[in-house]
């Protein structure tokens, strides 16, 4: 049985212009100890998927309108708020895009790490601070015994993301959701953070859901990948298969856009996908990628393609691959 199986998860947001269907029957799964990459451009629903899984969508304006989130045999969407709180930070933890603002400026990093350990594992304050120092050591922060008593503003961005990771892993969760953990960081620091996540994953056996728009990171770090576009999972497969033979035109575009995907001569522009993500409020009947797709057919504009399974363990949502 999968550790996590999201089935047909749908989320709507009330906006001034109408109801936006931000997630439309999203399905994805993660096995124990596995890493799943979730890729797509900004606004495609990657972060909302993660937040909805943990029921952290602000409501109103957001609302989960359907689906199931099976985690370790239980449907998280059916749990009481109290039961849900025992899952958050304990069995599933999350790190976010903005290390600079994701830590509370008023408390020491030690207090903030210790807080989850005390809550979920019933440690005393002293034991919890000790555990916090061990965690800082585990994420390679030098002099952890001293730094555990320092405040977030005394750490750099990369260091703060390490603190976030320490906090997320302090309760030894089964699943770590990393929502673009390196987007706000320098390129050199990005590599360090990715290395750290890989290293800790190997050590602890935690499954990882890595949300990113960086195809390079997906290629390096993940076992499977789910490509999202406008609230749909348009393709999902083992990462090697996707890189070797991307089926959905959007996936092909994403791979072509990644610097380093092919040799680019100096002065030559990188590839791009023309157009932008369509409005989620006024969805047409057809495929949402149709307007940007090079292979568009009349049918694409009239009817939403179904999820088809061209090979075992591989799904794609495109009329080109439905036979």
């Amino acid at each position: 049985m999968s550790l996590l199986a999201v089935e047909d998860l749908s989320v709507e947001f009330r906006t001034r212009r109408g109801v936006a269907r931000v997630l439309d029957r999203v399905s994805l799964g993660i096995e124990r100890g596995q890493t799943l990459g979730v890729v797509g451009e900004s606004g495609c629903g990657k972060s909302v998927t993660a937040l909805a899984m943990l029921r952290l969508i602000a409501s109103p304006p957001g609302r989960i309108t359907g689906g199931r989130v099976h985690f370790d045999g239980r449907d998280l969407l059916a749990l009481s708020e109290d039961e849900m709180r025992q899952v958050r930070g304990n069995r599933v933890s999350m790190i976010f895009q903005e290390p600079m603002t994701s830590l509370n400026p008023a408390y020491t990093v030690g207090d903030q790490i210790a807080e989850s350990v005390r809550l979920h594992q019933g440690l005393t304050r002293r034991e919890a601070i000790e555990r916090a120092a061990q965690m800082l050591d585990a994420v390679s922060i030098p002099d952890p015994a001293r730094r555990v008593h320092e405040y977030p503003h005394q750490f750099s961005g990369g260091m703060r993301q390490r603190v976030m990771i320490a906090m997320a892993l302090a309760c030894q969760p089964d699943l770590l959701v990393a929502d673009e953990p390196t987007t706000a960081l320098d390129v050199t620091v990005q590599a360090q953070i990715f290395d750290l996540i890989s290293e800790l994953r190997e050590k602890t056996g935690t499954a990882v859901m890595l949300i990113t728009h960086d195809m390079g990171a997906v290629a390096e770090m993940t076992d499977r990948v789910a490509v999202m576009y406008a609230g749909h999972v348009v393709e999902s497969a083992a990462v090697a298969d996707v890189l070797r033979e991307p089926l959905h035109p959007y996936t092909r575009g994403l791979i072509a856009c990644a610097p380093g995907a092919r040799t680019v001569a100096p002065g030559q522009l990188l590839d791009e996908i023309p157009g932008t993500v369509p409005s989620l409020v006024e969805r047409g009947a057809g495929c949402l990628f149709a307007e940007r797709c090079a292979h568009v057919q009349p049918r694409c504009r009239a009817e939403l393609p179904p999820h088809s399974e061209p090979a075992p363990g591989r799904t794609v949502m495109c009329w080109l691959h439905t036979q």
Partner: protein
Amino acid sequence: MQRTLVTVLRRLALAVGLVLAVLAVNFTLIHAAPGDPALVIAGEMGGADEATMATIRKTYGLDRPLHEQFFTYLGKSVRGDLGTSYTYNRPVIDLILGRLGPTVLLVLTALLCAIVIGTGLGVLASRRPDSFGSGVVTVFSLVGYAMPVFWTGILLVILFGKVWPVMPIAGMRDVRAFGAGPWQAALDVAHHLVLPAATLAIVYLAQYSRLSRASMLEVLGSDYIRTARAKGLSDAVVTFKHALRNALMPIVTIAGLQFGNLISGAVLVETVFSWPGLGTLALDAILGRDYPTLLGVLTFSAILVIVANLITDLSYRWIDPRLRGR
């Protein structure tokens, strides 16, 4: 720790300088005002010739150059001698010290109620900003904010003095309670305190509830609140531990800045409720042209405001660790 001590000492030195500046401004103002004190004294005596006038000037040091007079005044003030009241014919410092307690009691009670209740209402309103309860808090705040202090006071006097006479509407102690035990006396004062403190608190309560609602709404939308929720913390811990502490900054700022307004509000409230504080003393001094007393009250009000600002400054450092290094 040492840094904090150094800061406290530096702020204290600044505060002392500020008090001296206030003394200088007060002194200058009184001398810039029209009228010759010697003439006033001579008038009280029933008239005097030139020679007597000269004696008066010599006795009170009024024949000395202005800067010399200032330093004499300063020296005496520092030693606690603020002169003698014309009206009460007693040392001003004794009058003020007798009235300081009631005013501080009134102002601090009102401030505390306003901050605690106002912030509490604001926090409640911020948790469901579109709810009916939040709307009630908003309306209540706007009404409270719009009512002038003296008018609220008079309304309360009518309500609790005439319609529903359960609260004393004047003074600080009941004559019948004199000679009772200390607990009885404290209860008596507390009973008398209710209406004046409530009057003064309502306006500020309204401001704090508006302010804390806005401040909480901003903080609740921040990334670290999402982190706290993702940790599995309960709503109460997220609201009161993680959000409120960060939302306190503007509340403390306003509390410090408004302390002066609160004291001037106290003048009105004390007048309406005959509260024996600095406010009624100041009003009497103005009406009776009792300059030494007025100067003394002004100086003490300034000191109270300066102390309040000092406390504000220091609480910033407690609330926001980022300010501790400065």
